[in-house]
């Protein structure tokens, strides 16, 4: 049987014909912002890489106090190319979160969250939050000095939330302090809970993207201008493949040349080492918490900072409803807010590194 025959058998047995027809008919508008369409599929590429390398690491990783750092040490020093798999997983997380951020900012500035894509925006924002949570839970798993200290700081932050704060911290830690129970919890969250959540939300997100189609630039939509377009299959998919190849090459190059090391084993009884910092995508939040004074009137500065951050998160989540007419004044305010937000995040991150 020929390759075409085998493919035809699968299409027939699994009823894939409507999907293939849809892909042939799907149109991708061509304009100045088409480049941003590619960020969505690049995230999928990094997600697949994370799953593959994550499974390989999980074959040898032991989520216990005694075994965690020793198993990572074994992966790095004994298993063939183990250090490279770990490096791809570590850098892949950075690439994935960076691409999700770029994708979100592109949607923000092109106002693609407008009606009827409100839920697509909300699910996309949830995917960013889950991706960052992936990074946060994964950071503790090597159980080294830096990851332990950073997790202690990170899990202490929710304590400032009114009513549920102390409970959230206790739930995350599995007790009053970060211990072996925290490690087990973070491992389960990292390899089980967040993957399930991300797959569920991702499915909704992708279905909505297919349902509504690619968004047009705001100006073209207002002027009802007919833009040129290309078929999704094969014209757009082939272009995406070219970008995937380049991204894959860059990721593998960085993973080979700048593989992460493993810091000394964490000691629960020793004080935090100097210069503890979270991953780069949490730096601006970390610095925001640091610049607030210890006390602000009747409440702590940390409480005020956490409430402000939570308000910002809620506002971003409900952005399509705060800016229902992006072509008007509110749209301009949202654009300026986005620019200010990016500048703030960059400045705070650099300040935190100094």
């Amino acid at each position: 049987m020929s390759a075409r025959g085998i493919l035809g058998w699968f299409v027939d047995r699994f009823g894939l014909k409507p999907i293939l027809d849809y892909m042939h008919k799907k149109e991708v508008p061509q304009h100045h912002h088409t480049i941003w369409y590619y960020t969505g599929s690049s995230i999928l590429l990094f997600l697949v890489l994370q799953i593959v390398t994550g499974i390989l690491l999980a074959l040898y990783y032991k989520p216990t106090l005694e075994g965690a750092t020793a198993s990572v040490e074994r992966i790095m020093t004994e298993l063939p190319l183990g250090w490279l798999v770990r490096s791809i997983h570590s850098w892949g997380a950075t690439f994935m979160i960076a691409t999700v951020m770029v994708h979100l900012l592109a949607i923000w500035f092109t106002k693609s969250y407008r009606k009827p894509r409100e839920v697509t925006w909300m699910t996309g924002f949830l995917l960013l939050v889950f991706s960052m949570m992936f990074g946060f839970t994964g950071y503790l798993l090597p159980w080294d000095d830096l990851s332990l200290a950073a997790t202690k700081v990170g899990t202490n932050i929710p304590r400032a939330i009114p009513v549920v704060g102390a409970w959230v911290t206790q739930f995350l830690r599995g007790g009053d302090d970060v211990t072996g129970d925290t490690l087990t919890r973070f491992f389960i969250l990292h390899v089980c809970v967040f993957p399930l959540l991300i797959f569920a939300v991702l499915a909704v997100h992708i279905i909505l993207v297919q349902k509504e189609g690619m968004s047009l630039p705001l100006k073209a939509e207002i002027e009802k201008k007919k833009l040129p377009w290309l078929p999704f299959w094969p014209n757009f998919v082939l272009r995406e493949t070219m970008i995937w190849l380049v991204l894959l090459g860059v990721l593998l190059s960085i993973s080979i040349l700048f593989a992460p090391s493993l810091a000394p084993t964490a000691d629960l009884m020793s004080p935090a080492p100097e210069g503890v910092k979270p991953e780069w995508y949490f730096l601006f939040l970390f610095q925001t918490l640091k610049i607030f004074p210890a006390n602000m009137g009747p409440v702590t500065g940390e409480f005020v900072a956490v409430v402000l951050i939570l308000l910002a998160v809620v506002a971003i989540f409900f952005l399509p409803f705060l800016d229902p007419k992006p072509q008007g004044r509110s749209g301009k305010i949202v654009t300026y807010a986005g620019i200010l937000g990016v500048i703030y995040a960059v400045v705070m991150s650099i300040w935190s590194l100094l």
Partner: protein
Amino acid sequence: MNARRALIIVTALVLALAPPAAPAGPQAAPAAADRPAVAAKPDAAAQAAAAPAAKPAVTKKPAANKVPVKRTEEILPAFQTPKEKTAVIVFYVWLWLSIGVLLYFLRWWVQEADRVFRARFYEPAESPRKDNPMPPLLGE
């Protein structure tokens, strides 16, 4: 209830439920910049330091807190054998060569697919797609 009243009530509730500020003076909470280091100091250490004076009884530690043999030096990623080093270098060169060759063929394939699309090769005569103002080909 109007919005202003609701806002006042919500603010009052949030302030009432907020954790209280630490007292002023020498025992005041540390500066925000120092907080991570202080927060990182385990409470168990302070308790262990105070425990012998107050109660010399042996406290039973939970099994989860058993500390393994501590490794104090950093482990740097490195090739384990010269064979592995050669394999990675060969792989790296092969990777970029393959990407270069694949990009060349993909570019050619994209141009061909665009040309077929522009010629409306697969479109029936009455297709609504005929109104598409054709985009330029890749590289045009």
